[in-house]
């Protein structure tokens, strides 16, 4: 059984460049979350989808951050005009209907130079 898959595993971007991070959740999981983890910190909530509906985006730090899940499965987190402070590990997590816990992917480590 495949877990949550994220790509790319590592991404190096020049400041000002746009990036797109992909998350493929576990099949059948309706809930999908994006978290940002800075070095030495715990994961911080960014946004939440239930199927294709983005129900909570209160954690997105600026309007440069955009997430979508158009068909209720794969999700993409897009960051426009990247800044050095965007450097972090971006974690995707999913959970099944009625699920109490999240299953995390291995994350995408973004470095903005």
């Amino acid at each position, binding site marked *: 059984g495949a877990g*949550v898959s994220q790509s790319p595993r590592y991404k190096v971007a020049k400041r000002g460049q746009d990036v797109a991070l992909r998350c493929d959740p576990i099949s059948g999981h*309706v*809930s999908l*979350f994006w*978290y940002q983890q800075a070095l*030495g*910190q*715990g*994961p*911080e*909530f960014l946004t*939440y989808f*239930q199927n294709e509906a983005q*129900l*909570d985006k209160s*954690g997105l730090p600026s309007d440069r951050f955009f997430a979508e899940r158009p068909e209720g499965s794969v999700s993409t987190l897009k960051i426009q005009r990247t800044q050095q402070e965007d450097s972090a590990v971006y*974690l995707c*997590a999913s*959970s*099944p*209907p*009625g*699920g*109490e*816990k*999240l*299953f*995390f*992917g*291995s*994350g995408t480590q973004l470095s903005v130079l």
Partner: protein
Amino acid sequence: DQQVKQNSPSLSVQEGRISILNCDYTNSMFDYFLWYKKYPAEGPTFLISISSIKDKNEDGRFTVFLNKSAKHLSLHIVPSQPGDSAVYFCAASAGSTSGSRLTFGEGTQLTVNP
């Protein structure tokens, strides 16, 4: 505003002894608590959880204790094993449904020495 706090960045114990990891929270709306374990270059994996209607939950070598009046929870690992060496995150949510967002602490690096 750090709503979930793990005050010990690191903990070192001998193999076979007890590991106790602590976590404090401030938000009274939190009613479901989880511990996640994270190895380097991997995502966090679920370890154990507890609802606020309980004060203890046990799963094999792992026990979580919840003290609601003190807004404090702890994770006990007995006996500790070298493979338990990892970063442990405490997390909390208001509700235990699949849509409940988790608020994480900063993590505690546990090292179990052979």
